[in-house]
């Protein structure tokens, strides 16, 4: 499988100001994201998640090592524009990402900048708005939309540029539960139906549980990676890093301390309930 993103011995230090030394974030980080993958990146505040994301479309450049995006070295200036066509970014605050007064004009901003003919822009904007379920709002003013709707418009703006990869940096931090569901469902659909590679940075364990792969960053290093079930079953490690497992796993983990022996890979309420029921009825029959 070819790789959408690859970091090779990535080093990055934020430059110091005047006499203060710089802050080293990465010192030789190796990470690959396969094409079509859905990778959730977790880690405490200050673990390097956002710094990493900014390397994925060359907002930041490595101070050592190499970052390859769709086979292109981000440190070569002639690669900048092709890379930014391939990788779209969505940030935390929807209000900082919307530039136009009408939803469809906002979505058209990206493809206009790419110099795409206007007929095709129309098609791309309509398709992108349909994809995120916001077509009915195409004539609306973005500032009157809900947070979840604004984030979906921001995602549509990225889709209209037809990227191979979307990087989302805590896209749901400011949203209510419904807004979070809307954004996450949209992202899952892009990955499954359009084959778009997704990198999702989040503090919400239940969102990460929906990814194909989870990477845990701690102080610029990979502390754990694997499928959500593999990573979240390491509850003690997560706690030691200031993180938590999804609530269902936390429940099973706490119950195991009370004499149960439950699996730690149940990531949704239904399968968790089934495991608990099996444990209880299993005991009664023996």
């Amino acid at each position, binding site marked *: 499988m070819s790789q959408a993103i690859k970091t090779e011995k990535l080093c990055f230090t934020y430059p110091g100001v005047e006499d203060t030394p710089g802050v080293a974030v990465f010192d030789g980080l190796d990470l690959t994201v396969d094409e079509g993958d859905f990778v959730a990146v977790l880690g405490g*505040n200050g673990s390097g998640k956002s710094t990493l994301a900014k390397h994925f479309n060359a907002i930041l450049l490595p101070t050592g090592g190499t970052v390859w995006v769709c086979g292109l070295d981000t440190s070569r200036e002639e690669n900048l524009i092709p890379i930014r066509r391939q990788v779209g970014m969505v940030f935390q605050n929807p209000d900082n990402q919307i530039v136009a007064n009408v939803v469809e004009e906002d979505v058209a901003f990206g493809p206009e900048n790419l110099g795409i003919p206007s007929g095709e822009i129309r098609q791309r904007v309509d398709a992108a708005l349909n994809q995120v379920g916001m077509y009915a709002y195409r004539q609306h003013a973005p500032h009157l939309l809900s947070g979840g709707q604004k984030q979906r418009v921001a995602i549509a703006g990225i889709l209209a540029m037809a990227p191979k990869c979307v990087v989302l940096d805590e896209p749901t931090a400011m949203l*209510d*539960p419904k807004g979070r569901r809307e954004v996450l469902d949209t992202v899952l659909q892009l990955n499954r139906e359009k084959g778009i590679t997704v990198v999702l940075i989040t503090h919400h364990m239940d969102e990460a549980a929906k990814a194909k792969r989870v990477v845990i960053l701690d102080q610029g290093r990979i502390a754990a990676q694997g499928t959500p079930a593999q990573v979240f079953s390491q509850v003690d490690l997560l706690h030691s890093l200031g993180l938590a497992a999804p609530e269902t796993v936390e*429940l099973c983990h706490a119950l195991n301390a009370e004499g149960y022996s439950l699996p730690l890979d149940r990531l949704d309420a239904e399968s968790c*309930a089934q495991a608990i*029921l099996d444990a209880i009825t299993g*005991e009664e029959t023996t």
Partner: protein
Amino acid sequence: MTPLLEVQNLSHTYSAGTPFAHKALEDVSFRVDRGEFIGVIGHTGSGKSTLMQHLNGLLKPDQGRVLLDGKDIWSDKKFTRECRFRVGLVFQYPEYQLFEETVYADIAFGPKNMGLDGKEIDRRVREAAGFVGITDAQLNASPFDLSGGQKRRAAIAGIVAMEPELLILDEPTAGLDPRGREEILDNIQTYRRAKNATVMMVTHSMNDVARLADRLIVMSQSHLVLEGTPEEIFSDPQSLVDMGLDVPEVTRVFLALEKRGLRLPRVYTLDQAVAALAALKGGARHA
């Protein structure tokens, strides 16, 4: 007994009289007793933040009244000003409002405005820093050298230093990692206990309010639609989902167990869930 806060038939319309008029609050009434911890939940745009900004007089009601200790906060200018100190409002992402050269100066800004003397200001700054875990060394640092979680706590200390009787926090844990969230929530509890303060917390985290709040207020489409203990509010998951909200995940697990024929109490926190199931296991073992 007079409640600490009473909101009576409060309505507020933004851009009234223009084509963009938007009714953000409609006929909202509730009361908060001294020492309560109230959780405020509701979808984005439901009117939560508009409501909070009425409680210390940042916004003036179009209709209705806000009473602090039984007195309308707009009854006279002096009282309105007093209310701004007695009701402390921590906005969303308060760390963007840090502006002084040192953390100490930033925390001291509120008490200084209250006209307190230097010694009292110093006591309050140090005590507030203590509540949120800011060290002496950090007090002398620039607020911009702190980490995200520390900045948030420094900003909260700036409000806490005014020693408000009612501390209102608008999504104090948004954007923080699980450890950072825990720290902030612990800080709020510490302040509340030390000063016997009343707290209102706006949040999207059902788990947090389930665990901390005595009572919940649910806003939907500019109206106060539900009011009750977490137990009462989370007993009807579907109506919460219809309002764009949710129930805690452990409540969901218990509903799924109920569906499978198990008889269980209603739970909404992890500790309650563990206790209920541990008892069941113990019972099964002895059976």
